[in-house]
């Protein structure tokens, strides 16, 4: 199987599986909406304050929500033996993994990008800032997905894998959070979001290029 066919296989299979377990994906989205909705209730209803903290809250909520869906990326395949067959297939494992992670991103992160404007409206963000927030999520979530994929593959078979995964991934996600939430703030201050978006884009490219190989290596290690 060529790399392209392997990516397509992983993408189509995992999207088909995601369609079969829509409830699990809905939980991720509901979690995101709930967390972003709780902050205005917990803080004072001051429009200026809410608009100021909105990007940070949206980003933290997106980070936690993406963490919520991570264990299902490899653990189910590991438990039922599909991952063994993936590792033994006459196809490049990095490409199979890339297809899976892409499907995971489409199923759990892309809806967050589309939901972010909703959160922005809730917090009274101006339209320009909402656009930048959505753009940062679009560029930043692939980095989170790949960091998470590497973590998920490394914690395969480990006891308390899900909790370990959070401890492993969250510190690594800090730069993404800083630049993602900082972009809106920076554009509001009149500095423009160009630099933040460029850095996030660079991170996305790096993670898409190297992520598949590192993740595939971690999957192979999990069998040894």
């Amino acid at each position: 199987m060529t790399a392209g066919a392997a990516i397509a296989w992983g993408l189509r299979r995992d999207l088909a599986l995601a369609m079969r377990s829509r409830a699990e994906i809905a939980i991720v989205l509901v979690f995101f909406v709930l967390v972003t909705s709780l902050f205005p209730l917990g803080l004072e209803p001051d429009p200026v304050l809410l608009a100021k903290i909105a990007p940070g809250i949206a980003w933290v909520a997106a980070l936690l929500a993406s963490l919520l869906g991570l264990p299902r990326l490899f653990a189910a395949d590991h438990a039922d033996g599909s991952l063994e067959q993936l590792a033994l297939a006459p196809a490049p494992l990095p490409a199979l993994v890339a297809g899976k992670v892409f499907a995971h991103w489409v199923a759990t992160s892309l809806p967050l990008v589309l939901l972010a404007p909703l959160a922005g409206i809730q917090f009274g963000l101006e339209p320009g800032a909402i656009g930048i927030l959505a753009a940062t999520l679009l560029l930043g979530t692939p980095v989170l997905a790949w960091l998470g994929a590497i973590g998920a593959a490394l914690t395969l078979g480990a006891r308390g894998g899900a909790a370990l995964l959070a401890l492993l991934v969250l510190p690594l996600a800090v730069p993404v959070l800083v630049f993602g939430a900082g972009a809106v703030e920076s554009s509001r201050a009149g500095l423009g979001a160009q630099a933040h978006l460029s850095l996030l884009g660079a991170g996305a490219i790096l993670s898409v290029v190297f992520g598949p190989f590192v993740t595939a290596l971690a999957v192979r290690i999990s069998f040894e």
Partner: protein
Amino acid sequence: MNGDDVVDADRLEVEGLACAAGVRTLFDGVGFRLGPGQWIRLGGPNGCGKSTLLRALAGLGRPIAGSIRWRGAATAASRDAWHAAIAYQGHLPGCKDNLGAADNLRWQLALDGEPATPARLRELLGRVGLERQARLDYQRLSAGQRRRLGLARLLGIHRPLWLLDEPTTALDASGQALFGQILGAHLGGGGLAICATHLDLPVAIEPIRLELGGARPS
């Protein structure tokens, strides 16, 4: 059946293979040669390392010593060619609970690089007696029917060497006979197989018997 894929050079040579579980050596000094039309019946008490040996051969575990050579080349060094030569079926089915039998087979065959048209799937499921269960979710199949789905995969792919772990567990009498026929046809076509089993497999061709010793001084 698989004759078109098999050439004379299909040969598995294992020398001095040793595997460990943690710090305990499960077995060492395992060696054998396997040629076209031959199969190994891998026996031994529970926990002696049969599954570990099969996994190490497939490349899912790392042996602590020894060499595995396929067509004269070390398998660890030519992984792609090796993976294209083997069909491994371990304890885990590699099937998704919430997909139907036919869908599971379709994704697996596509991953194996084999054609998986609806007509082909129907034919394969029919040959293992699952035509009426094609749309049934995997989790609703009985243990024996799950094994039969595994047999359908073996029928559908063209690999010279089969590595099978307890292939007849949970199969009824007709299922065991079916497995015997399938393995017999595979061997008759010049295929090779290694089966870890406690049961007598109804295969006409006499196996090479390999017994892994139980407890050994460590």
